[in-house]
């Protein structure tokens, strides 16, 4: 399972501080850390960290995500998503790997597309 510190090899490229409010499309090629408010859309080809005091009302796309705050919107994560115990999520999740800590709130549906290699082989028919 992906751990938070797996993503922390170097400082995040974009940091939205606790007093900052962002409205619009926040798009980045690097890591994003949000501790403030974001309304609109968040898109990164790398990692997203949402701090415990953050409030996001936006659709989210990222490679990996670690969520500890409030997220209202659909979340698409290409690889690993970690939902911490302080997180509150209202929206649909799409990701390859998911971890939800005890105590976290999650309202919505979750889709996990299986990789081709992971598809189960059809069971052989019973031989008489």
């Amino acid at each position, binding site marked *: 399972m992906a751990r938070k510190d797996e993503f922390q090899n170097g*400082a*995040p*490229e*974009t*940091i*939205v*501080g*606790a*007093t*900052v*409010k*962002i*409205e*619009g*499309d*926040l*798009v*980045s090629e*690097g890591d994003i850390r949000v*501790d*403030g408010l974001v309304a*609109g859309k968040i898109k990164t080809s790398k990692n997203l960290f949402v701090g415990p005091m953050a409030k996001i009302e936006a659709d989210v796309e990222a490679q990996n995500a670690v969520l500890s705050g409030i997220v209202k919107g659909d979340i698409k994560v290409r690889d690993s998503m970690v939902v911490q115990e302080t997180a509150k999520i209202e929206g649909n999740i799409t990701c390859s790997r998911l971890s939800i800590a005890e105590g976290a709130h999650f309202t919505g549906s979750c889709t996990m597309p299986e990789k081709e290699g992971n598809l189960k082989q059809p069971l052989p028919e019973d031989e008489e």
Partner: protein
Amino acid sequence: MYFYIFDPGSDKEAKYFEKIQGRLLNYLAEFKVEGETYRVTSIRTVELLVEQALNAEAKTIVMVGSDSSLDRAINIVIAKQADVTLGFIPLDTQSSLGNILGISSDLEEATRTLAGRLGRNLNLGKVGEHFFLTQVDLGPRLFEGDPSGGFLGFGVLRSFMKIQPFPLKLSLEGSYTATSEVLTAQIINCRDNQGSRVKVGDPSDGLLDILLLNPMSSSQMFRHRRELLSGRFQDLPGTTIMHAKKIEILGPKKLPLSVSGQVYAKAPAEVTVAREKVKIIVGKNRQF
């Protein structure tokens, strides 16, 4: 052909300038990079001398002086759209641009770097009609550099504590707005990252870095006084860091935008990565 423009700067530096100039001329001869030399006076400004060098079809103009001497030379070279390489020999031992470009304030080392002729095309920022290599300060310019104001820098720290936060509103890339209460803000093209944990301001990445310093309590300021006094706000917890090519400063109205303490525009205003680049001789210890 090399053109050297010597800028003695303040009177204090001028006192030792003849001696420095003599030593430097010896090194230039030793490394075979001699050329014509001009000296800045109250009448013959940096701008006039750079123009004079360009009219003489200079291919390399070397500023010998302070960071602001180089900044002024860059602006006139860009304004004239001149195809010229700039060199820099810092006379100030604390020169930020010297550290960024990897050019020592030791005259022999600096001349050796110059003779190496390792040129790099660097991005410039643009505020109003002014081009800048380093950074724009939004609002009050907090102290940077030698943290010796008062006993252990406490005098400077006390002046930080008196600064009132103001509501800043920015639009980045025309795609999103950021609003926040800040103590100060900076838009950085490049900066001296010596001793910094977080590196900001790469003049070759085609982006400007925006730093917003959030309001801090007195105890937080005291705890992080080292970062505050050295101007390394990016190392402070909670500082906002964003990146963009185009930043519009929407408010507060009439907020001053300054480069090295000189105000070049007032909000609402735009700061962008300039289309123009400047070719500068850099050292192997450069920070980008």
